[in-house]
């Protein structure tokens, strides 16, 4: 019993210290000292203790944001600068670092924040309201399989992103896909337009139109797809609700989806996104679940893995950029991507995807495997 009492007395000062309140003056002056000395980790730890105590100020949020920024945790930096902005919406320093944090974390909100910068800062950084070409991208994909009746598939895409203001962007893609099935050539040129509108820093509205110029042999089977989505971005979390409608020659498909994602703290920017989709087609319903996880391996290299379960017949993803309307539906899909950033303007994408395909109209459940090798380039002006 007395040993327990001795132990209690030994740890009593620690317990007492842990309960001592930090206070504004101490928190403010210590965070400032850590800021001057560049002790970013200590600054982050102390700031979080202070914020949990309710000790808060614009300068403390700015210092915490800068500390996260310097350690490469741009998502956390952005969250701190967002908080600093609630104290003073006209602070140019806050707005500038909020923009840089969004830019470095790959957030779609970077253009929205760019619009909030002062005229002098916009001029200094060369930011303009309207950009006919923000970036161009291209993608090539070769899909191989082991069946004798199906040839390899080829897919090409070329796209242009335009900034129609600080809050509105338009992506237009032109793609082409072909495959020979039982000696009949299927060709499918496509056009897609995706419009994104940031109502504010939290809510984004998306609309898309995708036209499929499908031709099997000499017969045309055109298809039209429309999509509407609303997404919210709050701190580390994203939520999206979307609905789309595909009217093809032979079938009409309705798709509704819910998506949720989160970014973990830390400079590796580990993120997870899960989406659940309901498909309605010819009076039958089915569900598709997709899970994505990604992280930043180094300053210039990102990787992402994904897995999709369910029958993907006429399923569309990435705001209808991709429509899975091949004759043989995919029933399982998994892939891995690597994105390498070369300098400020160029990024290179490499992807390998494994698909399990079900042979169309087969009386028995005949499946085959498909292996996709994709490469892409993106040039940001």
């Amino acid at each position: 019993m007395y040993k327990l009492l001795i132990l209690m007395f030994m740890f009593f000062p620690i317990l007492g210290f842990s309960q001592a309140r930090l206070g504004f003056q101490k928190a403010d002056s210590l965070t400032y000292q850590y800021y001057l000395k560049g002790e970013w980790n200590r600054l982050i730890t102390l700031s979080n203790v202070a914020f949990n105590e309710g000790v808060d100020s614009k300068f403390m949020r700015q210092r915490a944001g800068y500390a996260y920024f310097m350690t490469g945790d741009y998502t956390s930096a952005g969250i701190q600068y967002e908080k600093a902005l609630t104290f003073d919406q006209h602070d140019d320093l806050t707005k500038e670092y909020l923009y840089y944090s969004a830019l470095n974390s790959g957030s779609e909100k970077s253009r929205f924040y760019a619009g909030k910068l002062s005229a002098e800062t916009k001029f200094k950084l060369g930011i303009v309201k309207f950009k006919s070409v923000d970036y161009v991208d291209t993608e090539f994909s070769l899909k191989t399989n082991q069946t004798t009746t199906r040839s390899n598939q080829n897919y090409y895409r070329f796209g242009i992103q335009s900034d129609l203001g600080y809050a509105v962007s338009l992506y237009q893609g032109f793609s082409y896909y072909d495959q020979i099935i039982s000696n009949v050539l299927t060709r499918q040129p496509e056009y897609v337009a995706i419009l994104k509108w940031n109502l504010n820093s939290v809510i984004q509205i998306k609309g898309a139109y995708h036209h499929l110029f499908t031709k099997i042999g000499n017969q045309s089977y055109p298809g039209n797809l429309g999509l509407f989505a609303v997404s919210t971005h709050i701190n580390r979390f994203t939520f999206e609700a979307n609905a789309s409608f595909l009217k093809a020659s032979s079938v009409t498909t309705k798709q509704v989806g819910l998506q949720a994602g989160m970014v973990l703290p830390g400079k590796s920017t580990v993120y997870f996104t899960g989406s659940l989709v309901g498909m309605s087609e010819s009076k039958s319903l089915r569900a598709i679940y997709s899970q994505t996880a990604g992280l930043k391996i180094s300053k210039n290299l990102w990787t992402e893995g994904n897995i999709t379960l369910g029958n993907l017949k006429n399923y569309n993803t990435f705001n209808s950029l991709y429509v899975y309307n091949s004759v043989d539906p995919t029933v399982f899909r998994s892939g891995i991507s690597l994105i390498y950033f070369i300098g400020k303007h160029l990024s290179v994408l490499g992807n390998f995807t494994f698909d399990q395909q079900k042979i169309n109209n087969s009386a028995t459940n005949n499946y085959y495997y498909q292996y996709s090798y994709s490469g892409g380039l993106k040039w940001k002006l």
Partner: protein
Amino acid sequence: METLRKLGLTISLFLISFVMHAQNITEIQAAFSKSYIAENQKNYIQAIDEMKPVYKAGDYISNIRLGWLNYLAKQYGESITFYRKAIALKPYAIEARLGCIKPLSAIENWEKVKEQYQEILKIDPLNTTANYWLGVIYFNRKDYKSATNLFEKVVNLYPLDYDSVIMLAWSKLNTFSHTDAKLLFQQALIIRPNDSSALSGLQMINKWLESNLKSSFK
């Protein structure tokens, strides 16, 4: 007899409550007195502690006092909380809002400071402090038109107040009302001869007039 008994009981109860209230008032006055002494000695934590035994959440004066003392003790979060309670108890009391502005300014929460000044101006549209400082906020945000409107109110009330006159002059200059700005800078020089801010303002106006004259002759 029964009536007399009831009357006696009522009088007794009244006397007890009166004595208790008097005791409470004495306790509160003593606590405030001790708190003032501690404050004068710059012992703000002790000044807060003296108030605690008599503090009531529904008492306006206690909340104002604790808001002020916590501000002095640099406990800004707590200070804001007490001032907010006081504002909720007396929504038309300007002093509570002016008090709340102090800790809000200390933590640089200019959005909330702006809100409080706007609320004061809803209650008292000609409040000099609110008009002047809200004008300064707008001026710092380069919203010179809004700043001009507010400084004008103060200058109309106090034409010899140097700070308001010079701020109005600069706001007018930034809204390209050069004639008004010139008159105001000259007025500022009467109030405060050789004032560097007014002289630099007049210099800028003269340069602007010269460049305009040259361009009109080209």
